[in-house]
Structure formats: C-alpha cells, structure tokens
C-alpha cells in the first residue's frame, strides 16, 4: 500500500513539475519527485543510493535549478506548444503502452535481498572504471561550465585596458 501511495506521489509530482507555470515551483516539484523516488529506492532495499539520490537529486540538482532560474529569470512564455498536445499525449501513451504490454505480463520478478559484495567494495573496487569515468565527467563538466559562464572576451579586454 505504501508503495502504491508513493507511486501516485511520484507521478503526481512529476506531472506537476511539467504542468506548473512558474519555473521555480516546477523545480520544487522536481525535488519532490526526486525525494519520493529516493523513498521508493529505500523501500526496495537500496539504502545507500537512496541517500545519495536524496542529497544529489533532491538537493544539489534543485539548488542548481534554483540558481539557474535566478540568473536566467522566469519569463512568461506562452503555454502553446508547437506540437499539438493531443498528438504528444497519444504518442507518449502509445510508446509506454507498447513497452508495458510486452513487459507487464512478465513482471513476476521477486526482489531478492541476498547480499553480494558490499556497496563500498563494489563501487571502489569492482566498478572502479565507472568511478574513474565519473571523475572525468565531473572534470569535463566543470570545464564546460567554465567555458560557458565565464566571459573570457571581457576578461581579455579588461586586461588589455589595464596594460594600456
């Protein structure tokens, strides 16, 4: 039952995030979705990742969104989409139904909780290639962000002026 309530909560929050007109509120709904997903993860036994999701997904990402929205500012954009809404709905639903139609009859997967190698060991040892790449990704992301957000032209011009 608890699972079901959380499912409904997730979907509701997600839908609100899409639907709400104010960006900031949208970001909050996203945080809500994230938190509920984290709880769902916790319920099926993934304790470590639930914490991480709570802190990164619900925390960090929301902060980033709020930050970006603050800089970029919310602006009234007409709620008209290019694609007729019914068309978008139909196709989304069809895609989901096609997947579900094939998958749901097979969903008798039990959730097994037998312990394999501990999470720490798995992340730091067995999957250290992924971890290494995460570092690379973060590095690449930071460079990208710096490139996009620092105004190098301005800095260069400023420096030129100082020199002169």
């Amino acid at each position, binding site marked *: 039952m608890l699972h079901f309530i959380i499912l409904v909560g997730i979907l509701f929050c997600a839908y609100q995030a899409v639907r709400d007109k104010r960006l900031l509120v949208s970001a909050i709904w996203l945080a809500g979705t994230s938190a509920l997903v984290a709880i769902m993860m916790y319920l099926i036994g993934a304790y470590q990742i639930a914490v991480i999701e709570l802190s990164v997904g619900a925390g960090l990402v929301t902060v980033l969104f709020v930050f970006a929205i603050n800089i970029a500012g919310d602006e009234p954009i007409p709620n008209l989409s290019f694609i007729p809404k019914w068309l978008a709905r139909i196709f989304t639903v069809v895609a989901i139904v096609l997947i579900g139609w094939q998958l749901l009859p097979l969903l008798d997967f039990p959730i097994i909780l037998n312990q394999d190698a501990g999470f720490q060991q798995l992340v730091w040892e067995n999957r250290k290639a992924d971890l290494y790449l995460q570092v*690379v990704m973060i*590095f690449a992301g930071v460079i990208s962000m710096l490139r996009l957000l620092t105004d*190098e032209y301005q800095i260069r011009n400023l420096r030129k002026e100082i020199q002169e």
Partner: protein
Amino acid sequence: MDVNTAFSWLLIFPMISSAVIYLVGRTFSRSVKIENRTNPARWLALLALLVTGVFLYFVIKNVFSTGQTHYQNFGEVWFRFDGISLLLSLLVLVLGILVTIYSFTYVGKEPGEEKFYALLVIMIGAINGLGCALDLFNLWVWFEVMTISSIVLVAFYKDQAASLEAGVKYLIQSATGSVMVVLGIALIFLETGTLNIETLRMSISSPTPFLIIGGALMVIGFGVKIAMVPLHTWLPDAHSQAPSGISAMLSGVVIEVGLIALLRALGGIALSGGRWGYLLIGFGVLNMIVGNLLALRQKEVKRMLAYSSLSHVGYMLLGFGVLISLNGLMAGVGAIFHLITHGLMKSLAFLAAGVFLYNFHISKGSHKPLILDDLNGASRKYPFTAFAFSIALLSLGGLPPLAGFMSKWQLLAGVAQTQNTIMIVLVVFAGLMSVLSLGYYAPLVNRMYRKEPAAIVMEGEPVSIWMYIPMVILTLAVVVLGFVPSILYWLTGPAGYSLFIFFGQ
C-alpha cells in the same frame, strides 16, 4: 612496455593530460602579460595525443605479435582490445592529431583555447576507451563522457546564437537518447543478470520481450548519436555550427563511434534472432535517401556536408546490417573500410570548408555561414584548398580512383555476395543514391573552378601553414587509398572478423 601497463595508460593518459593541459593553459593565460604569445596548451595537447599514440603502438604490437585479442580488467569491468578497438583508436588518434594541428590557427585567436584542447583530448580518450569496453554499462559511461565533452565543443562560439542553439539541441537530444540506452541496458540486465557482453552472449538462447524491447531502446538511443533518420535532426545544426575541426571529428568519428557502440551492444544480444540486422538495413535505406535529398537543395556548405554524412552512415548501416543478419562478412569489412574512408574524406571536406570559412569570415570576426556562392572561383586564390576540397567531394560522391569509390565498392560487392534478391536490389539502390549525391557535389566542384571569383574570395586571408598540414596528409590518404586499398587490409580485416565472430550464430 608491458601490454597491461600500456593498455591502462592508453585509457588513463588522455584524461590526466587533459587536466594538465587545462591547468597549464589557464595559468599561462592568467599570468602572461604579452598578448601575442601562443598558449602552450596546444602543444601539450599535441604531445598528449602523440604519447597516447605511443601507448597504442605498444598495445597493437603485442596484439599482433601474440595474435590474440587482449583482455584486461579493472575490478569487475572487462575490456577487450580487438580489431574494432584497434581501428577506432587508430582512426580517432590520427584524426585527432590532425584536427589539433588544424585548430592551432582555427581557434588560436579565441580566448579560452585551453578548454578547447582539454575537452578535445577527453573526447578522444573517451572514444579510445569506448572502442574496447566489454561491459555494457561501462560502454554507456564512456559514451556519456564523449557526449559531455563534445557538447561545449559544439557550442564553442558561446556568444553566437546559432552555436548555442546547436549546442542545446545536441545536449537535449543526446541526453534523451542516453536515457533510453540506460533503460535498454536495465532491461537486458533484468533478463540475463550480467553486464559482460561476452557472458551475456552466451546466456541468451531465445528472443524474449525484455531483450527485444531493450535492444530496440538501445537502437534508438544510440541511433540518436548515429543520426539514423529520423533521429538525425540535431546533426546538421551541430556539425555546421561547431568549429570546423570539431565538425570534422563529429562527422568523421563520433557518429561512427555511436555505430560501433550499438554494434557492441547488439553483439551481446545477437543470439536473440536476426532481426537487428534488418532493422539496421531499414534505417540505412532511409538514411541514404533522406540524407541525399536534404543535401540536394542546401545552400550552406557545412550543412550540406552534414547531410551527406547521413547518407554515408546509411551505407555503413547497410553493410553492418548485412553482416549481422545475412552473415555477410565481406559486407561488414566493406562497411568498416567505408567507416575509415568516410572518416578521412569527410574530415578533409570539413577541414577544407573550414579553411574557406575561417579565411572568409571568422578571421574577420564575422560568424556568417559559408554559403555556396562564397566559393565561386575559389581556386583562383586558394588553389590547393580548392583542389583538396574537390578531391574530398568527388571521393564522397564515389568516383574512382578515390578512396570513397573503393570502400563503397567493397561494401556493395559484399552485399551482393549474399546472392539475395532484395540485397541485390539494394545494391542498385545504393548505387543510385551515390549518383544522386553527385547532383550536389559536382556543382560545388564546378563552382570552385569558375573564372570569375566572388568578391569575398579575393578579400580572403591567406591560409596558415597549420591548416595546410592536415589537409595535405588527408588528401594524400584519400588518393592513395583509392589506388591501393589493400594497404588497410591489416586494419579492416581483423575488425570485420571480430565483428563477425561477435554476431556469428
């Protein structure tokens, strides 16, 4: 050098050196007062790629001397250095080095060039790793690294609206695709409980809905990067707005990398039936015709080249599809050969177009696109560049005796070899598409040899030596490969064979 060490460094070195490049470049650009000194980041980037090449050499040497595929693990994650990896690493390093040299001038005046080189080196490193990843999830991670590093390379002119727009589309569509790939991986893992592609292959005997839906999600997810029609919509924007060196990399390697990644992933579920090959063939046919038709009426040079990439990907899809579904080893080898030649000739085309773009517009601070009319009579002032561009275009159009013909031929002969009626019809269709593509390549070549040059040509700046070097090398490669295609057999043969045993029933 020990092969394990060499292989580890092959994967790790580019990433480390990228950090060094960035830090050194940043320190330099902060500290130096004199404006006109060159940033050492560019030399470091070149050096890093060359050193990576040395590591690659040791790995290759070992693989060829023992005659065995090299397996190596980091924790539970396995890597396999086989023919495909060899091919991909070599192609990306060669093109990467050439593009780095080319970019000395092209982004030389741009502030923040150290970020450009740092990201470029990460991208090349990621492609290196992706070629040998044997773990389904790890494959995706390498892929994601490649994507993240290439987003800002696409949107490198961050003050240009068009460039940002291209970056946005590239980011959103790639990310959508990668989410689908994750879903696909999850479903496959759910069915089999393993991520190692080779183990995965063994554990599959019959097609189940999970495998089919997972495979379909992966086809679409990677398909966004491969630019299968109709998932291609980001490609013309990204390829035309990126700095030309990056356009060359994107068109010459990155879309093919997506293809290789897809083949790796599908190789894991190959035993779930032959339908994947037919799917690829279907997309291939669509790609050929849509790519060519879209390019036909295009007025911007780089967009035209981008659309032509679509049709060339179509050829490769056709070849790989035949390899998967009809056991056409030779078609696969042909497709791999076409992958190489397309990498070379499309890079050449983009670099040459970039020379025009740079000297006509960018060096003067304008970011107008290069349109067809700008090239009128370009051979008057830029004889070599015009010649190289013509060679690239005619080779793309599949005219002998250039590399493009040889690879198309090998591919089509391989497809015909299946002796299947539909496939033989497809051979004719592919040939027809090749003819259609001449409908836009040939006028462009004519244009460059007109007697009356456009005003913009005569006002253009002279070409720098750094731009000449890669063009000369690539032109030579395209011509030489056209005359002696057999010099690459050592590369295409093993690659095709490693794919073949991957998909063999």
